[in-house]
């Protein structure tokens, strides 16, 4: 009995201490996209080194989750790669602003037995594979674009996201632009009705499934392919070139949009025009209320975003993302002023 009493006392003490320590430290909770999770977690870690009393807790549960939870106000900020629709914005209790943070790319990853090279894909081919019309790796449609590659007769297993995802949004947004059949049959959203395939949880889950399943093809943010050394292919852009995702090709994709940025920053840059542009690129956004309830957290988040738009951008390249164009950063800093801090 004595030990139980001691245990309860210890727990009570720990809670009180924890609460008081927490009062000096600030914890800000956010949730959303898995697409930028690698760079966000790097940023929050670096920001913490500069401001040791600030803990920004980010849970990568998918873009759909980010939108939902910020609408419910159960988190302070959200993150998404698929911009909120007008209906979603109207459903929110206050005005939500989008702030682009980095540029990223969805790449087609695959795991083909005995083949380690780089495959070329056209938009139409990717759509046909994900529609379930091309079912084997030795299909002539694939061979046509990849003369000289010996591909086995293995079945293609499509891997997609099981939950609502901005990475999905970027992918299907692109497929809708290059395949009328995809546009009418499936459409664009963070969660769609997939004609075929297996669902994985998060970019992490899709990468995991692809690397463990021979014959699989999936789509992930570039960094997940790089960090896990999964083969990924090049995609044909509007100008006809087969382009691999990289900092340069993603920056090229944003070049056209940078000059014509809408005021709320919601813009799609998939299938961008221009030589060397990677066609499945996208901005990724942080979601913040224009008039947030907690002013203290708001001040910190605004400061964080300013840091991310300046010093944070240098972490983008090494992690497989591309820094934002300078014009966009200027516009964002102006928009940040609108957040009511008092």
């Amino acid at each position, binding site marked *: *009995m004595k030990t*139980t009493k001691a245990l309860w006392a210890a*727990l009570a003490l*720990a*809670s009180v*201490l*924890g*609460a008081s*320590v*927490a009062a000096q430290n600030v*914890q800000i*909770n956010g*949730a959303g996209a898995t697409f930028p*999770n*690698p760079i966000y*977690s*790097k940023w*929050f*870690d670096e920001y913490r080194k500069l401001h040791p009393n600030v*803990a920004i*807790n*980010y*849970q990568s549960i998918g873009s759909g989750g980010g939108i939902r939870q910020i609408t*419910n*106000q*159960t*988190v302070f900020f959200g993150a998404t790669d698929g911009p909120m629709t007008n209906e979603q914005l109207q459903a929110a209790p206050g005005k939500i602003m989008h702030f682009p943070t980095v540029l990223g790319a969805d790449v087609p990853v695959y795991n083909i037995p005995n083949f380690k090279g780089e495959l070329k894909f056209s938009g139409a081919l990717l759509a046909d594979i994900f529609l379930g019309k091309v079912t084997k790796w030795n299909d002539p449609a694939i061979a046509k674009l990849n003369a000289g590659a010996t591909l086995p007769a293995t079945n293609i297993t499509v891997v997609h996201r099981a939950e609502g995802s901005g990475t999905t949004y970027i992918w299907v947004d692109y497929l809708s632009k290059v395949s009328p059949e995809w546009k009418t049959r499936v459409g664009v959203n963070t969660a769609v009705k997939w004609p075929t395939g297996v669902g*994985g*949880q*998060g970019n*992490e*889950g899709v*990468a*995991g499934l692809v*690397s463990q399943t021979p014959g699989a093809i999936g789509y992930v943010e570039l*960094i*997940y392919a790089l*960090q*896990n050394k*999964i083969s990924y292919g090049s995609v044909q852009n509007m100008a006809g070139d087969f382009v691999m995702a990289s900092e340069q090709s993603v920056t090229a994709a944003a070049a056209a949009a940078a000059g014509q940025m809408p005021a709320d920053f919601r813009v799609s840059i998939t299938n961008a025009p221009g030589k060397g542009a990677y066609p499945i690129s996208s901005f990724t956004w942080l979601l913040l209320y224009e008039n947030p309830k907690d002013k203290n957290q708001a001040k910190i988040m605004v400061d964080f975003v300013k840091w991310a738009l300046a010093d944070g951008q240098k972490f983008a390249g090494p*992690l497989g993302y591309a820094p934002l164009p300078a014009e966009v950063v200027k516009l964002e800093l102006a928009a940040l002023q609108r957040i009511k801090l008092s």
Partner: protein
Amino acid sequence: MRGTLWRKTVSWLFVAFSGLSVLIALVPLAFILFFVVGRGIQALNLQFFLGTPKPVGEVGGGMSNAIVGTLMLVGLGSMFAIPIGILSGVYMAEYQGTRSASAIRFAADTLNGVPSIVIGVFVYGIAVLPFQQFSALAGGLALGIMMIPIIARTTEELLILVPSTMREGALALGATRARAVFTVVLPAAAPGIITGVVLALARIAGETAPLLFTALGNQYFTTSLTQPIASLTVQVYAYAISPYEDWHRQAWAGALVLVSIVLLCSIFARVATHRLERMARGT
């Protein structure tokens, strides 16, 4: 007429099948423990117990925040469930045979069978949405709800086992019914009740689904009750479905810690029950 040989053969086959099924059940158990211990031990080091998660993709870091999180959540759950569970158990034991006691028993047994994901959704609705905050408290509440039936039933069964002479003796000395129960009978049953609590702890320490919507998760070390908190189970889940080798290693280590906690609790419960039985028999 079936020959004796036939009957004996059938019987022998039956016995063999029976023994075989024990082996069949033990194979996955051995398999699982083999992998959890084998892969888990490799990843266990001081860094695992003291460190916190590193940025995505970087090697290293640990699960100290998740371990402390699980301990806190289990503690919160107990604080909520133990009083309610014990009181329900007392009621059921004292008013045995009445319809209300049977109704409570039925309710406890059915609560036991409710899928943990449904409990998670329920607690999201009552403890997260209204306060607009994922929190350790909400996670503790979800886990506590799952503990209540186990504690209630154990308390009831053990109270019934206490010889009625103890209760009657207290009543004869002029104690009120409540006093008799709480100062005489309950303490007598206490060791067994503690065993039941320990078993309930072991059960909820391994729960994941209800925490997904309540405690959410946290990559930092925190002991705050009103903030999201990491837990071993949710962290192992996130790491397991990721593509990072280092995270897989840590997931096995986390699983090893979880299984060890559960094993220790089960062994404790078994030894305690054994000694209680010996005490009851008077050996």
